[in-house]
C-alpha cells in the first residue's frame, strides 16, 4: 500500500476546537425596567378604570341615593331603591323575562352552533362562502340586523305570514302577530337574538372541534363506534372546556343585552319582553330616574361575577391540563 501524500485525517480539522463563540452578554434587567413596565402599562389601566371603575362606583352611589335627572342634592336613602325595585312588578317581570330570554336562546344557540360546527368541520367545496353567509348575523351591526327582522316579522307585510297563508296554514287576517302577542313576541326576540349570537358560538366551537386531532374520531370509528356514540362519548366530552367558554360568553352577551328587544318590541307588548337591561334604560335614561335605573342595572352584577368566576375556573383548568 502506498503511503498517503496528504495525511490529513477527516476529523483532523474538526478536532481543533474553533474559537468558542463569544457568549452574548446577558441583558441585565436594568433597574429602570420595572418602571418602564409600569409606565407602559398604567395609561391603559388608568383609562379603563376611569371609564369603567368610576361609573361603576357611581352606579352604587346612585343606587343608594335619590338622584334624578335635573335634581341637585343627593340624599342617602340606603337600600330603599333596591327594595322598591324588588317590589315592583315591572322589575320582577323583567327579571323573569331575562331568565327566559337567556336560557331559551342559549339552549338554542348551543345546540344549533354545535350542529353547525360539526357540519362545517370537514373541508368541502364552497365552505368559505357558507362560512361567510352563516357569519353575517354576528359580523353585521346587530341593530341593523334586528331592523331586518322587524320587517320580516311585520304585522301586515311579514314574508313569513305570506308563506303561511300561501300554504293554507292560516287565513289572511288570522296570521300570527309575531311582535304583537306576548308569547309570540318573547319567542321572536329569543329567536332573533339566537340568530345574532349563534355564529359567534359556532366559530368558537369550530375552533374546539378542529383542535381535536383527526385520528381520535378515526380511532373511534375503527373501534366500532358510530356517529352518535362518537359524538356523545368522544367529541362532546373532549369539547367540554370550549363548550363552557361558548356558553359563558353567550350568557353574558344575552343577559346584558337590550338591542334586539329595544329594536323589535321596545319591551312590549305590555312589558312581556321587557328584560332587565332594557328596563334600566327606560327607567334611568328615558324616565330620568337615575337612582332606580342604576339599582336595576346593578342586578346584572351577580350574574357577571358568577360568569367571570366560572370563566376563570375554565381558564385555570385548561392551563393545568
Amino acid at each position, binding site marked *: 500500500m502506498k503511503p498517503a501524500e496528504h495525511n490529513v485525517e477527516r476529523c483532523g480539522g474538526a478536532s481543533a476546537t474553533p474559537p468558542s463563540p463569544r457568549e452574548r452578554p446577558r441583558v441585565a434587567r436594568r433597574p429602570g425596567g420595572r418602571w418602564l413596565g409600569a409606565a407602559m402599562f398604567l395609561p391603559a389601566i388608568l383609562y*379603563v378604570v376611569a371609564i369603567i371603575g368610576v361609573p361603576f362606583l357611581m352606579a352604587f352611589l346612585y343606587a343608594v341615593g335619590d338622584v334624578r335627572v335635573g335634581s341637585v342634592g343627593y340624599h342617602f336613602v340606603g337600600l330603599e331603591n333596591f327594595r322598591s325595585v324588588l317590589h315592583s312588578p315591572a322589575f320582577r317581570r323583567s327579571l323573569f323575562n331575562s331568565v327566559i330570554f337567556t336560557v331559551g336562546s342559549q339552549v338554542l344557540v348551543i345546540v344549533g352552533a354545535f350542529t353547525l360546527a360539526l357540519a362545517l368541520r370537514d373541508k368541502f367545496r364552497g365552505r368559505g362562502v357558507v362560512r361567510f*353567509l352563516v357569519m353575517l348575523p354576528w359580523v353585521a351591526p346587530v341593530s341593523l340586523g334586528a331592523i331586518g327582522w322587524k320587517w320580516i316579522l311585520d304585522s301586515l307585510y311579514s314574508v313569513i305570514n305570506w308563506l303561511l297563508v300561501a300554504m293554507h296554514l292560516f287565513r289572511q287576517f288570522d296570521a300570527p302577530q309575531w311582535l304583537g302577542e306576548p308569547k309570540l313576541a318573547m319567542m321572536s326576540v329569543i329567536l332573533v337574538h339566537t340568530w345574532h349570537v349563534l355564529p359567534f358560538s359556532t366559530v368558537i366551537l369550530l375552533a374546539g372541534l378542529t383542535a381535536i386531532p383527526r385520528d381520535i374520531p378515526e380511532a373511534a370509528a375503527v373501534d366500532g363506534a358510530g356517529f352518535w356514540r362518537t359524538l356523545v362519548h368522544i367529541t362532546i366530552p373532549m369539547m367540554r372546556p370550549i363548550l363552557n367558554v361558548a356558553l359563558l360568553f353567550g350568557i353574558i352577551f344575552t343577559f346584558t*343585552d337590550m338591542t334586539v328587544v329595544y329594536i323589535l318590541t321596545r319591551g312590549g307588548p305590555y312589558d312581556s319582553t321587557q328584560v332587565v337591561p332594557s328596563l334600566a334604560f327606560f327607567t334611568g335614561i328615558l324616565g330620568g330616574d337615575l337612582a332606580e*335605573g342604576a339599582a336595576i342595572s346593578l342586578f346584572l*352584577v351577580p350574574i357577571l361575577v358568577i360568569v367571570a368566576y366560572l370563566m376563570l375556573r375554565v381558564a385555570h383548568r385548561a392551563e393545568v391540563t
Partner: protein
Amino acid sequence: MLGHWSVIVAFSVVLAFPFYWMLITTFKQTSDLYDITNNPFIFNARPTLEHLRLLFGETLYLRWVGNTALAGALVVFITLLLALPAAYALARLTGNWGQRLGIAIFLTYLVPPTLLFIPLSRVISLLGLQDTIWSVVVVYPSFTIPFSTWLLMGFFKSIPKELEDAAMVDGLTRFGAFVKLVIPISVSGILTVVIFAFTLVTQEFVYALTFIAPEAHQMVGVGVPTFLVRGDVYYWGSLMAACLITSLPIALVYNLFLDRFIAGFTVGAVK
C-alpha cells in the same frame, strides 16, 4: 352525507335570509311592498332605485356613516396608543404578574354597557360631550382596550425574546426595541386590532343610543333604525338599503380577521 348538506343548507338559508330580504326590499317599489296579495319573493313591479335616492338624497345617512368612520378612526387611534405598550408590558416586563393582569383586563371586556350607561351618561354631560361623537370616542376605548391588549399580548408573546435582546446588544434601549423592532414585526397583529376596534365601533348600539340624540350627530347603527322611521311610518325600502349597505362591507372585513379574534377568545380552552 345528505344530513350534512341539509344542515348546511338549512343554516345558510336561515342565517343569511334577512340580508337577502334587505336586498330584495331595497329595489322594490313601495306599492309592490305594501300589497299583501303580491308574492313578496318576486318583483311584481319594475325594480326601482327610489329608496336609494331617498336614502342618499334626503336623509343624513352619509353623515352618519361619516360620523361613525371618524369615531372609529379616533377610537382605533386611542386604542393602539394605550393597548400596544400595555400589551407589551404584560407580555414581557411584568413577568409572572403579566398573565394574571392580562386575564383581569380581559374580564373588564365583559362589563356590559347596560351596567354603566346611567352613570356614564351623567359623566358625559358633565364633561360637556353629550350629543357629540366625542362621547362615544371617549367611552368606546373602555372595551376596545381590554380585548386589544389581550390579543396583542398573545402576538407579542410569540416573538422570541432573543430578538429584542439582540437589538439591545446592538445598542437600542428596551423602549427603542419595542418601537423599532417589536411593532414592525407585529403588523398583522396590529391590523387585527385595528379591524376589531373599528368594527366594534360600528356595531355598538347602547352607548350611542344613550349619549347622542340629535339627528345630525348620530352613529349609523342608531341613526338608521331611529331616523328612517317617522312616527309610525317605517321607510322600509330605504331602511333595508341602509342596513345592507352598512352591513356588507363591515361583514366582509370582519370575516377576514375572524379566526384571529376567535383565537383570542379561546386561548387556553382549546386543546
